[in-house]
C-alpha cells in the first residue's frame, strides 16, 4: 500500500492544478472573469502540473534526453490546458497543434520515429487543417455566448482531476512494490516470456503466442535493434495483417459516411414517376 505521507504531495499538486484550471475555464453564465483571476488561475495550474511532473518524473537516461523529455511533456500539458480553456476556437486549434507536436517529440524519444512522422502528417497536417477550414466556415470570432460559458465547470473539473488522481495513485502503488513479483507490480522489461508461463496454472494463450513471435520483437535474434520501418512493416503485415485490412475498410466506410452525411439528396429510385426534390440540409 502507498503510505499516506507520500500521497500528500501528489494530491496537493493535483488539487492546485485543478483549482487553477477551474479558474481558467469560462464561467457558467458567461460573466467575464477579471484578468487577475485569470492570471492566478494560470499560475496555479502551471505550478500544480509542474510540481507533479518535477516531483515524479525522473530524468530518464542521459541529460539531453531528459531535457527534451521535460520540454515536450511540459509543452504537451500546458498546451492541453490552454486548448481546453481558450475563449476562441482558433486559439484552441493552434494550442492543440502544439500538443500534437509535443507528443510527436515524445514518440521520437520513445524510439518511434515513423509514428512521429505519421502523427505530424496525419494529425497536424490533415486533421487540424480540416478543423481550421471548418472554423473558417462556422466561427463567430470568440464573441459568441457558447465560447464564453462552460457547461458545468466545477463538477467536470472535480471529476476529471479525481480520475487523474486515481491514475497517479495506482502508479504510485506500483512503484512501492517493485521488488516483489506479485500481482500489483510492474513487470520488469524483457521478462514477458519468462514470467507468464512460469506462474502455476497459467494457460498459454494466443496473446502470449503472438507476443513471443520473432516478428513481434523490437530486436532481432542476436539482440540488435531491427531497422525501424522495416521491422514495423514486418510486424504489421505478418502479425497484424487482418488489423491492417480492417483499418482500410474503416477508412473506406468513413469516407462514404462523410459524403452521405453532407449530401443528403434523396436517391432516385427506378419506380419514381418524376425526380424527387433535393432536400436542403
Amino acid at each position, binding site marked *: 500500500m502507498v503510505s499516506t505521507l507520500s500521497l500528500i504531495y501528489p494530491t496537493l499538486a493535483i488539487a492546485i492544478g485543478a483549482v487553477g484550471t477551474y479558474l481558467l475555464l469560462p464561467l457558467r453564465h*458567461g*460573466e467575464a472573469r477579471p484578468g487577475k483571476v485569470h492570471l492566478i488561475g494560470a499560475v496555479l495550474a502551471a505550478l500544480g502540473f509542474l510540481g*507533479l511532473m518535477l516531483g*515524479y518524473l*525522473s530524468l*530518464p*537516461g542521459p541529460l539531453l534526453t531528459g531535457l527534451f523529455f521535460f520540454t515536450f*511533456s511540459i509543452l*504537451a500539458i500546458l498546451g*492541453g490546458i490552454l486548448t*481546453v480553456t481558450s*475563449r476562441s476556437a482558433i486559439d*484552441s*486549434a493552434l494550442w492543440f497543434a502544439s500538443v500534437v507536436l509535443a507528443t510527436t517529440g515524445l*514518440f521520437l524519444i*520513445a524510439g*518511434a520515429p515513423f509514428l512521429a512522422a*505519421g502523427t505530424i502528417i496525419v494529425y497536424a497536417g490533415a*486533421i487540424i487543417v*480540416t*478543423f481550421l477550414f*471548418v*472554423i473558417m*466556415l*462556422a466561427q*463567430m470570432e470568440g*464573441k*459568441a*455566448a*457558447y*465560447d464564453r*460559458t462552460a*457547461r*458545468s465547470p466545477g463538477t467536470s473539473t472535480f471529476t*476529471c482531476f479525481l480520475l*487523474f488522481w486515481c491514475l*497517479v495513485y495506482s*502508479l504510485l502503488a506500483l512503484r512501492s512494490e*517493485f521488488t516483489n513479483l506479485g500481482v500489483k507490480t*510492474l513487470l520488469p*522489461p*524483457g521478462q*514477458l516470456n519468462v514470467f507468464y508461463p512460469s506462474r502455476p496454472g497459467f494457460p498459454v494463450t494466443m496473446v502470449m503466442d503472438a*507476443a513471443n513471435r520473432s516478428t513481434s*520483437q*523490437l530486436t532481432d535474434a542476436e539482440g540488435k535493434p531491427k531497422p525501424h520501418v522495416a521491422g*514495423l512493416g514486418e*510486424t*504489421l503485415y505478418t*502479425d*497484424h495483417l487482418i488489423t491492417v485490412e480492417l*483499418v482500410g475498410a474503416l477508412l473506406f*466506410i*468513413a*469516407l462514404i*459516411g*462523410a459524403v452521405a*452525411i*453532407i449530401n443528403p439528396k434523396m436517391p432516385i429510385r427506378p419506380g419514381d414517376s418524376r425526380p424527387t426534390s433535393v432536400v436542403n*440540409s
Partner: protein
Amino acid sequence: MSESANMLMNYLLVGGALFAIGMLGFLARRNMIVMFLSAEMMLQGTALTLVGFGQYHGNWTGQVFTIVILTVAACEASIALALIVVLYNRRSSLDISLWNEIREPSLETLDASSIAEADQAEPVEATPGPESYPHLTPAGIEPSHPGQPWIERRS
C-alpha cells in the same frame, strides 16, 4: 527503480494528464469544435501510454495499435466535422446546448431561462459604444442622410 521503468512511469503520467485534461474539455465546453479537439487530445494521451508500454516490453504492438488509433482518429475527424457542418447549417450556431432536446423523454432538459441567461452574457472585453466615438467639428454643408443615424453598438 530501473531506468526503463522510470521512463514508463513518465509516459504513463503524461498520457494520463493529457487524457484527464481532454476529458475536462469535452465535458465543460459548449463549442462543438473545442469539444471535438478535446476528444482528439484524449486519443493522444492513450497513444502515449501505448507507445510507452511498447518500448518497455520490447514489442511492436504498441506502435501498431497507435497507427490504428491514428487512422480511427482521422475517420472520426472526417465524420465529426461533417456532422458539425450539417448541424451548423441548421441552427447557424456551434453551440451544443441547442441540441439538448435530442435525448430520452425521461431525462430533464435544461430550462430555457438558463440558456437565455447565458446568451445575454457580457463579452470579455466590453466594446465601447457610441458615447466614445470621436466628435469632429462640422465642415461644409451637411449632406442628405439616407435614413436613421447609426447609433447601435458595434458588434
